[in-house]
């Protein structure tokens, strides 16, 4: 698909996204609340980065700033050296749930961002992504007749169909049951490995982060700063009972300040 589509060594060293001294302060009931403080982060092209942190720390805020839905009060986000000023088709935000349009079929949802293409091209693109997220046979089904997992796959397909460089995923599997969640992780990895987009993935699930990410960014509690960036140096497919995996997982739990004995 894109130039970054080089099999094997996934990531080039080129910076795709750079957050520079990012800070967000907003006012609620006359009180000034700092949500993000001095966030500096470089994300490479084709990299899979997970953002974890205590709930309410500002993970979603960070994603919304990167996606152009919120303007930072300090600092800036640049993508390919270009400052982010608003939402853009080149970077799509995927929501936790209810992100798909219930009045459109699977086909209609995937084709939503493709109105500028010719009919034939659009049909071809839709067919490709229906297949990629394994929704064959459901092309004319409405989201209310799909399961939660299928709906999230549909949302990912709709995002990928417009050929974005970056996908921002805001706890995309957070509303799914634990079995579906594990399956969805596998699906997302498979999709990422075939399509090679840059992914920034917010989650509150430590296992999810260690299983998916090239690097995990740990945010502190509010005002959120980057507390730690942990590279996950385990190649895919990851053995989730290997010593290195468990070591990294423990390290993350410790970073977040959770006891890992219950």
């Amino acid at each position, binding site marked *: 698909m894109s130039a970054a589509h080089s099999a094997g060594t996934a990531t080039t060293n080129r910076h795709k996204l750079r957050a520079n001294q990012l800070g967000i302060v907003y006012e609620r009931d006359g009180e000034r609340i700092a949500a993000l403080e001095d966030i500096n982060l470089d994300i490479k092209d084709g990299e899979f980065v997970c953002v974890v942190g205590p709930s309410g720390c500002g993970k979603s805020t960070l994603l919304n700033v990167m996606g152009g839905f919120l303007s930072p009060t300090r600092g800036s986000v640049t993508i390919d050296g270009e400052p982010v000023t608003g939402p853009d088709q080149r970077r799509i935000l995927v929501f936790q749930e209810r992100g798909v349009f219930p*009045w459109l079929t699977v086909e209609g949802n995937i084709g939503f961002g493709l109105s500028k293409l010719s009919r034939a091209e659009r049909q071809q693109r839709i067919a490709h992504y229906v297949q990629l997220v394994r929704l064959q046979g459901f092309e004319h089904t409405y989201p*209310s007749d799909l399961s939660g997992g299928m709906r999230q796959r549909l949302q990912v397909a709709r995002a990928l169909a417009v050929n974005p460089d970056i996908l921002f995923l805001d706890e995309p599997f957070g509303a799914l049951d634990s079995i579906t969640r594990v399956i969805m992780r596998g699906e997302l990895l498979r999709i990422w490995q075939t399509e090679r987009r840059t992914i920034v993935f917010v989650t509150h699930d430590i296992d999810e982060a260690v299983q998916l990410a090239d690097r995990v960014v740990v945010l502190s509690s509010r005002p959120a700063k980057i507390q730690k960036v942990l590279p996950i140096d385990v190649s895919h497919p990851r053995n989730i009972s290997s010593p290195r995996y468990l070591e990294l997982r423990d390290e993350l739990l410790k970073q977040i300040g959770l006891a890992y004995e219950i």
Partner: protein
Amino acid sequence: MSQPKRPRVWEKVFWPVVAAALLLCLWHCGVQWSGTKIFPFPLSVEKGITELMRKHVLWADIGDSLRRVAIGYSVAALTGIPIGLCLGWFPAANQVVNPLLQILRPISPIAWIPVAIVFFGVGDPAAIFLVFLASFFPIVVACVAGVSSVPVIYRRAGRNFGLSDFALLRKIVFPAALPQILIGLRIALGVAWLVVVAGEMIAVDSGLGYLVIDSRNSGKRYDLVVAAMLLIGLIGLALDVAFRRLERVKSVRWGFRDAT
């Protein structure tokens, strides 16, 4: 095994028929026992209906009532939907207009009859105006509510795919609000049917409402009065059933389910 008993098909028809038959019985006995000379027996009403049908005025009256509703209601929908969408879309405009709407809305359209006659004289336009008034407010209010309850997430997704303001309204806000708009349209249709009958009793000299009042005035034909009333009920029911079919259209069906 505790399986909830589902009513069988024949039961769904059978019991309502029994209830109706009982009611007719009660009506018949009531007239008999009270010895009233004015209120008709069910059987005379039935004869009244066949008499009305034979005389052909009935079809003209039904046609007139339906035509007035069709025109008044269509104009209300064609103006009310865009106005409601705009008010929902621009909360500032809504704040300005809303108090006015809230004052006008509780005024029964019946109270407008004298004003309608002053404006339009006795005749079709007055009745159509009343139908318009009756349906306009529920439609506008439903559109405003529908638009303002569209989840932010849909708008954000729309923006993310590069939609302009107008495209966002057309491709996101309208379809997302459509189930609520349909509910408003359905309520409006019911009210329109109520009001056309009332309007026809005073403002015009044709239609089902006129039939009711005329049957009473020209010779106290209460069999015809009740016959016309029953027809009004049946046609109202038919309109509602027809409208409900719209809710089953697939692209809006999601909004009429408890789940999702």
